[in-house]
């Protein structure tokens, strides 16, 4: 097969050469939309790619499956709430993403390397930089695309819950407030997870390493922090629980939203950070997102042609 191909190609090409000549080359005089359009194109291509759109069937399976897994519990809760005429949803909007954090981590781990490691591995990055876009445009497009993909993943079940709650004729004001708080929370979570995932994935052109590293960072840190918090709780040193929460992305979001977004904390003992501690949570979260962006910029400054 491999031997046949070069034999066949020239034959086909020479046979068609007359046809090529007849059609002739048409030059392009239309608009050239420049750098910001190119950045947006990269954004939409990367966002679609995060759900396997425009790629092979095989690469659609996992993201689509995880999306369904995210939404099914929400649909079940809505069904239960409607059927039992419950006064409230079984789970808070802000709590949903924390409960489903394993699914979200898995999604980041699979899609962050897909987004950046592939470009490194197949050396498509230099090709992008031979176009009008600059390093910063590439980083911003990739960051925004993965954050948007994560937001879609985490906000969709909240939307299911919200629509369901309204159908079940639950209190409109309460539900809208809870939904809005949930959206803010998952937006921050999306930015943070996307940043961490991309920084880790952009270090290696090997997709497998990227997946393993992202899972390790997200879940091991969460496991370690939860365990330490439980130990601290058992030993009665409740004051340190909140500070430990700063050291894993999931507990960081958890603490932030229980301090400011009216969420009930999942920390052992149910004691979230106070408002003062909550400010530190916000600063750390925003600082981490900014640091991820800065690291990505540094990383791609070196990846030239």
């Amino acid at each position, binding site marked *: 097969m491999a031997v046949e191909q070069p034999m066949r190609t020239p034959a086909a090409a020479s046979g068609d050469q007359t046809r090529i000549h007849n059609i002739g080359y048409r030059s392009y005089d239309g608009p050239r*939309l420049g750098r910001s359009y190119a950045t947006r194109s990269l954004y939409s291509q990367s966002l679609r790619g995060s759900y396997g759109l425009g790629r092979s069937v095989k690469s659609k399976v996992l993201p689509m499956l995880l999306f369904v897994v995210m939404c099914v519990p929400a649909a079940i809760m809505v069904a239960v709430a409607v059927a039992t005429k419950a006064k409230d949803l079984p789970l808070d909007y802000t709590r949903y993403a924390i409960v489903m954090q394993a699914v979200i981590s898995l999604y980041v781990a699979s899609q962050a390397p897909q987004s950046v490691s592939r470009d490194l591995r197949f050396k498509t990055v230099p090709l992008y930089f*031979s176009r009008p*876009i600059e390093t910063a445009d590439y980083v911003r497009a990739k960051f925004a695309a993965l954050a948007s993909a994560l937001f879609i993943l985490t906000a969709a079940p909240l939307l299911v819950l919200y629509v369901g709650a309204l159908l079940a004729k639950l209190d409109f004001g309460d539900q809208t407030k809870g939904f809005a708080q949930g959206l803010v929370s998952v937006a921050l979570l999306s930015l943070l997870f996307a940043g961490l995932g991309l920084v880790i994935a952009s270090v290696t052109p090997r997709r497998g390493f990227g997946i393993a590293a992202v899972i390790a960072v997200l879940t091991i840190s969460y496991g370690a922090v939860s365990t330490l918090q439980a130990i601290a709780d058992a030993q009665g040193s409740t004051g340190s629980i909140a500070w430990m929460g700063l050291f894993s992305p999931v507990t960081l979001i958890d603490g932030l939203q229980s301090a400011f977004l009216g969420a009930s904390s999942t920390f052992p003992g149910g004691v979230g950070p106070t408002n003062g501690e909550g400010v530190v949570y916000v600063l750390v979260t925003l600082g981490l997102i900014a640091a991820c962006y800065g690291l990505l910029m540094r990383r791609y400054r070196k990846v030239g042609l």
Partner: protein
Amino acid sequence: MIATESLSKRFPRVTALDRLSVDVGPGVTGLVGANGAGKSTLIKILLGLSPATEGRAEVLGLDVATKGAAIRERVGYMPEHDCLPPDVSATEFVVHMARMSGLPPTAARERTADTLRHVGLYEERYRPIGGYSTGMKQRVKLAQALVHDPQLVLLDEPTNGLDPVGRDEMLGLIRRIYTDFGISVLVTSHLLGELERTCDHVVVVDGGKLLRSSSTTDFTQITTTLAIEVTDSDEHPDGTRAVREALHARGVDLLEGGGGLPGAGHVLLITAQGEETYDLVRDVVADLGIGLVRMEQRRHHISEVFTNEDSRTGEEQRKEAVGHGG
């Protein structure tokens, strides 16, 4: 198209470009040099991706230091290395690259279909690139460089990894980029021979310095030396000698063959005076009843640019030419 003025690029340990001043006009221009001669560095600077240490360069009249993005919008680039993701189709990939160059979605799709057809990719373009042969991949790489209808394309070693047939096709395609599409080309290669057929103009760099820049016709002034190779027969066990004697008898003087080189003894070199010489050779060979293996024009080769630097004699240069030609 391209103008550089004492352009230098120094890295901590090496000097990649050393006060290179060169002017490239429209047409197909070859950039020749050994590996590490500074070809890729020059391309990077021309695309505005790497600042020059000193000196200046302009592409399409735009300064590379300040107008990088504008240059990259109007220039196509085909990298030397592999750059194609294997799990998307050629169409999908080239459409994406067209949009990355600023083409609106509809135009991107139309131009992709056109360009892929021009480089010779048909039904295969809907299949994932991972299953393509090297030749097909090179075509996709070329297509992504042409899809936005640039005014100039920079092709970095486009014939790398291709078999002789694929090489010839690629060179033919490169020629057509200028003659049929009207897009000027800067093509790099470390093989001098393959560029002389394709380029109007050749720039030779070595160690980051300009060695020579002139049009291909200057390099290959047609002296129409004919190379003749014949078979032997029972009647003439040494066909080459028989032809040499027969030609001598008819008053055609033989040039000094490429003595010493293996196989060179079987190649006869004569100076063609015009059409008659071809007929004469044909008749002589036919009369002797032996086979004519080849009769071809042999021009001066670009490789001589290197030997010209030394003060060698013409004789030695000709030997060099035979060595590269055979």
